[in-house]
């Protein structure tokens, strides 16, 4: 943590130098690739507000909603129509990298945009009903290893989507073979999936910690592991990580931005530094605390590498389960 902070201080210092070179003028636009009310919409609006408070933008940041194809419409728009726009940010998350890795945006790939930075995350969890026999992640994974078909998972994403992939990431890290035969039941959202797990029809739930908060509080759901590097802050502090149970599985659903790749190089640098500085600010920490976002912020120069790595990992997994050929 200390290391990260000093890094962002460094970045902030660098920012003040480079700020002389390029500064946004006029209107800055942030595209949320979904309808109002969702996670991407939240990313655009809250980051836009904090940027205004910190004086990073001359006027206001205008949020445009551009729904369709799980972000594909906005991605295509950025690549084909706005490829040299220096004042455009587009909200993204692990859902974006998942679809890119699985070639769900026809003819497009992660290299076609500039990845700016991440500003926090929601972490993946694996949970069971309160009266389940599985007491920890190792119990569950031992059962999977003994017979891949014996544990049925339910999640709120489509087959091959992020919730499904988290199961596979954990099973792979635990050393389970034959990943394609692990049964995964896809529901329209995490809530429906949890109902089936609590009702005893499906064995385990895979999802993000934020969507399960209600059932964790009511005691209906027992979280076996959170797929984070270290224990989460606050009231989730008593949930063990997969890592401390000896299973090296990480599943951050990060929130961040990409921008057009042919934008002015100085502008790209400006926005990378701006996100760095924003992440370190007290204003943003308050936003994260209010909305249950958990700290997650790869250093500015490592974010592109992180995205590339995530896309590669997901692509490999998707091939292993036969979703990609």
């Amino acid at each position, binding site marked *: 943590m200390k290391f990260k902070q000093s890094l962002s201080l460094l970045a902030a210092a660098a920012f003040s130098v480079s700020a002389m070179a390029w500064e946004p003028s006029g209107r800055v636009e942030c595209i949320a690739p979904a309808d109002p009310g969702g996670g991407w919409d939240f990313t655009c609006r809250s980051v836009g507000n904090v940027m205004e408070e910190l004086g990073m933008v001359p006027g206001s940041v205008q949020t445009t909603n551009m*729904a369709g*194809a799980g972000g594909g419409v906005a991605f295509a728009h950025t690549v084909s129509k706005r490829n040299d726009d220096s004042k455009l940010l587009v909200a993204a998350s692990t859902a974006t990298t998942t679809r890119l890795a699985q070639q769900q945006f026809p003819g497009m790939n992660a290299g076609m945009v500039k990845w700016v930075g991440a500003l926090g995350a929601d972490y993946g969890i694996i949970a069971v009903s309160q009266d389940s026999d599985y007491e920890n992640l190792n119990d569950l994974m031992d059962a999977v290893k003994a017979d891949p078909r014996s544990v*049925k998972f339910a999640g709120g994403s*489509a087959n091959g989507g992020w919730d499904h992939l988290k199961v596979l990431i954990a099973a792979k890290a635990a050393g389970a073979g034959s990943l394609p035969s692990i049964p995964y039941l896809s529901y329209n959202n995490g809530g429906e999936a949890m*109902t089936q797990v609590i009702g005893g029809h499906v064995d385990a739930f895979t999802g993000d910690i934020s969507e399960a908060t209600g059932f964790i509080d009511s005691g209906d759901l027992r979280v076996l592991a959170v797929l984070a590097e270290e224990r989460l802050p606050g009231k989730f502090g008593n949930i063990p990580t997969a890592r401390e149970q000896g299973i090296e599985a990480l599943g951050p659903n990060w929130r961040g931005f990409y921008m057009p790749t042919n934008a002015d190089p100085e502008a790209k640098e400006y926005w990378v530094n701006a996100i760095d500085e924003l992440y370190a600010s007290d204003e943003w920490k308050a936003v994260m605390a209010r909305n249950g976002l958990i700290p997650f912020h790869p250093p500015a120069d490592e974010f592109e590498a992180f995205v590339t790595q995530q896309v590669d990992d997901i692509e490999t997994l998707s091939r292993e389960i036969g979703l990609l050929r």
Partner: protein
Amino acid sequence: METLQFLMEGFAVALTPTNLLLALCGAFLGTLIGALPGLGPANGVAILIPLAFTLGLPPESAMILLTSVYAGAMYGGRISSILLNIPGDEPAMMTCLDGYPMAKNGKAAEALAVSAIASFIGGLIGTIGLILLAPILARFALTFGPAEYFALFVLAFATLGGITGKNPMKTVVAATLGIMISTVGIDISTGTQRYTFGVLELYEGIDFILAIVGLFAISELLLFIEERAGKGRALIQVGKLKLSMKDIYSILPTTFRGGILGFVAGVLPGAGASLGSFIAYTLEKKALGKKGRFGEGDMRGVAAPEAGNNGASSGALVPMLTLGVPGSGTTAVLLAMLISLNITPGPLMFTQNADIVWGVIAALLIGNLLLLVLNIPMIGVFVKVLSVPPMYLLPMVTMIAFVGIYSISHSTFDLYFMVAFGVAGYILRKLEMPLVPIILGMLLGPEMEKNLGHAMIISDGNWGILWGTPLAVGLWLVAGLGLILPYLIGPILRHRMRNAIKEDAVSD
């Protein structure tokens, strides 16, 4: 006790000034829409969905507005039945039988007042039933696994035509159309795209709301343009209200029986309000025998079906809220609205979105009271609206539809899609194809497919799981009955209904 506490919290939501105002607006607009012949409650709610989006309402307020419209439309349907002998919506058909003769005998005011009181009591009974039954069913709903859900969806499809459905084949075709539309987009069970032809806008499938607004609201406009029905209608004069306490007292037993029967009919998936009013009327006629003068303008003949259809309208909310399976066409539209507000109906909703569920239930109670107040002293206003030429009403409807749909996604593609659905709706109406099964097909089809897939994964491909529990077997039996009964009883019932209407015409 717990229920009472939740209900109090619901009142806290529903009684905020904004929500109260929305309930009042919804009740008023609903009555208007119900009163206009041709625009049923399903259309009414569909037309006002864009309004909720245009105003940018939070979920609980949007649902309060739309359920008030729903309750209002149930009240409004009776007005044109009584004054014009044209039912405002299908459930109000039975009200014509005694309502119109009463109006012809110079008792229009009395018929309207009696039906308003009966609607109020029926609605009240239905809502109380909803309050008592829904939390119990919500807890019970946790025992529904994929196999039970699959059987339940089969049941919903089997009873779709209902007993009053005219042409079962057309219902099947319409439902199939709906299922076909719903297969466009990503198939969540395999993660592959179906029928998207590389068009990015189709990747997430076709939005229910687009289809609903297009099919119902836009096609209504097209029909109007074709008919050029610029003239208002000739009405029976409404005289001064002469209703004694004795009259009201005399309809009470009928009203209570009608309300309870209606509620039970409403709870059954697929059956809905039309069945509620029909059962209430025919059983009351049987029960009273020679003591009643049904068909000649008996007050009880107005009270029974009105109590029945309003009881059924609340009853139909029970399976929609607890299981996510709509009990009628209008609740299907409400369900689509809930889904697009990102709320999952079902047992979860009662714990996770308690404010919305109980806010809506409290709004129903308040709405009923508002409707009674609106419908007795202000009946003259609604009667006047019946004579307003639709050339002023429909352009407004269209404007709201366009603005509302655009404000959801800011996509012109969606607008083209909506217009396309409007044209399709117009053609289907010309073919006398029912539209509600299309919506039900769109909503239920993917769920049925998903649950079948899940049941197969859980059982490792053993089909036996589908009838593996007593609950599932029970649901299959009811589904079987639902499929067969209309063919056995349907023709008899429809024959009787026709006869009843014919007799009525003769006695004029």
